[in-house]
């Protein structure tokens, strides 16, 4: 790839990172908000505790006259009450930070609508592994949205922990969470699209593509001719399946993340675990395919011997930093996009908490900004998939480049 072209591409990436910086700033602000509202949470806890006491009392009074089922129902209703009170309390100061972080984080159930105990959500399987108990599989509905314990486990702030707070044994959580399910759905859609495309191509050998495939083929050609070939050179064909898979995987998950309702809305590519694995795949590919020039450049660079002390650690750091930066860039960009959109929506509720009229006044503005951001995020969905693939291709290109001295 010609130097200037590469430069232009990086420049656009830099512009993008400015936006991300802004987004992270907004995120930090919201985080700060969260800290401020922590006291509200504490108060809510107190209310909860109070509710539990009441429950105990009720239980003692009615002892022996009601069935355990009724007790349960009673307990639940009591908890509802407590929760309702807590929520009433929370509503006074709408906690935007909490709401946003709940939305961009992972969850053990797929929340559809409603709040607290009335929330309607799709329960997802919880798969836990502990050394003492082995493998445990149950539905997340058993947690009653974090209000009940099951099998000695409780759901605390989205994480499965021991009901007994003193227990320190580590829990390995392999649950099919919201992100896992969203990723599986998006992946399934991707597989359907691409495999049907492959079928179409093999059965219509040599003919022009039709319909939807006309949309996909330019992307494939773009990846091959403008990313892989200029970056990797004549070995590009070998890495095309990987680059295409990475690109389309990121792209479809980004797009699904922008759909606000099921099966979209999950912040898959904005989750560091996902980007970590993607970056790891690139890192492994680069390391496996690195030729002698690549390794020589790291461990025996063309500098005077005494410089090795400085250069070699820097080079090794560079090897690790490249995938690390890949991981962070995608995670930060997508998360930032989600935070901004959620932030705009939060404005409605923040102002609404001050006075309902103000909330109604702000909402058209928020919606307008959200529409604008969604448009921008669609561009970002493509751009980040493109940047990730481009940089992966460049790293691979560096590793397989032949030097003729």
């Amino acid at each position: 790839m010609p130097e200037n072209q590469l430069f232009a591409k990086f420049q656009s990436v830099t512009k993008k990172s400015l936006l991300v910086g802004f987004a992270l700033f907004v995120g930090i602000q919201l985080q700060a908000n969260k800290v401020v509202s922590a006291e509200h949470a504490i108060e809510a806890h107190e209310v909860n505790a109070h509710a539990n006491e009441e429950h105990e009392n009720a239980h003692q009074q009615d002892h022996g006259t009601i069935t355990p089922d009724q007790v349960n129902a009673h307990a639940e209703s009591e908890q509802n009450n407590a929760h309702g009170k807590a929520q009433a309390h929370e509503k006074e100061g709408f906690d935007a930070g909490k709401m946003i972080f709940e939305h961009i984080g992972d969850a053990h159930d797929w929340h559809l609508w409603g709040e607290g105990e009335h929330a309607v959500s799709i329960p997802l399987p919880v798969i836990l592994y502990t050394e003492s108990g082995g493998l445990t599989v149950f539905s997340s509905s058993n947690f009653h949205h974090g209000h009940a314990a099951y099998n000695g486990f409780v759901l605390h702030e989205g994480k499965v922990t021991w009901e007994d707070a003193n227990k320190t044994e580590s829990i390995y959580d392999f649950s099919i969470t919201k992100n896992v399910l969203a990723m599986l759905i998006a992946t399934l859609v991707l597989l359907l699209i691409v495999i049907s495309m492959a079928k179409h191509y093999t059965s219509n050998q040599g003919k022009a593509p039709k319909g939807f495939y006309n949309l996909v083929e330019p992307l494939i050609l773009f990846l091959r001719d403008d990313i892989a070939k200029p970056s990797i050179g004549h070995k590009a064909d070998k890495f095309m399946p990987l680059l295409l898979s990475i690109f389309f995987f990121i792209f479809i998950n980004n797009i699904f993340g922008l759909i606000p309702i099921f099966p979209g809305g999950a912040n898959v590519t904005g989750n560091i675990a996902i980007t970590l694995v993607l970056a790891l795949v690139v890192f492994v590919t680069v390391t496996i395919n690195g030729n002698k020039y690549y390794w020589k450049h790291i461990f025996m660079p063309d500098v005077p011997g005494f410089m090795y002390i400085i250069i070699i650690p820097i080079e090794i750091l560079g090897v690790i930093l490249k995938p690390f930066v890949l991981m962070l860039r995608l995670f930060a960009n997508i998360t930032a996009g989600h935070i901004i959109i959620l932030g705009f929506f939060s404005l409605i509720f923040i102002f609404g908490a001050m006075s309902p009229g103000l909330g109604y006044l702000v909402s058209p503005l928020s919606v307008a900004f959200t529409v604008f951001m969604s448009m921008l995020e669609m561009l970002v969905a493509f751009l980040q998939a493109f940047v990730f693939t481009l940089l992966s291709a460049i790293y691979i290109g560096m590793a397989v480049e032949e030097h003729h001295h």
Partner: protein
Amino acid sequence: MQLVTPAIGLVFWMLVTFVIVLTILKKFAWKPILSSIKEREDTISNALNQAEQAKNEMARLHGENEQLLAQARSERDAMMKEAREMKEKIVGDAKTTAEEEAKKLIARANDEINKQKLAAMDELKKEIAHFSVQIAEKLVADKLENSEAQQKLIATYLSDLNNKAQA
């Protein structure tokens, strides 16, 4: 902090999913798609090359045709010229032959005419001599008393006759 801490479960599922997706797509999607795109590109570039070749061939054939046409035209011109020359030659030959023949005929006719004339002269001379004799007989019979005069007369006549004959 939870935001930037990768959850082990998600890492595990993502790794499993991505490796499976990569394997499936590589085998059942990208390879057939890329190869058929490549094939199509080759087909198109081949077709374009062939079209170019056909165009060149056409141009070559066209040139050849032009050349053939020009050759045919010049050949025709040459033939026409030859034919015209031939015609002129034939006509000329015929003319000379006819002229010669005519001359011969005229000469023969002249000869014949001369012959006939001479024959006619001879005849005439004979006739005249005969008439003269007859006239002379009559004259002699009438005027034979004067012999001298007669002799003179006869001599005159004869010399006249001779002169006429010579003329």
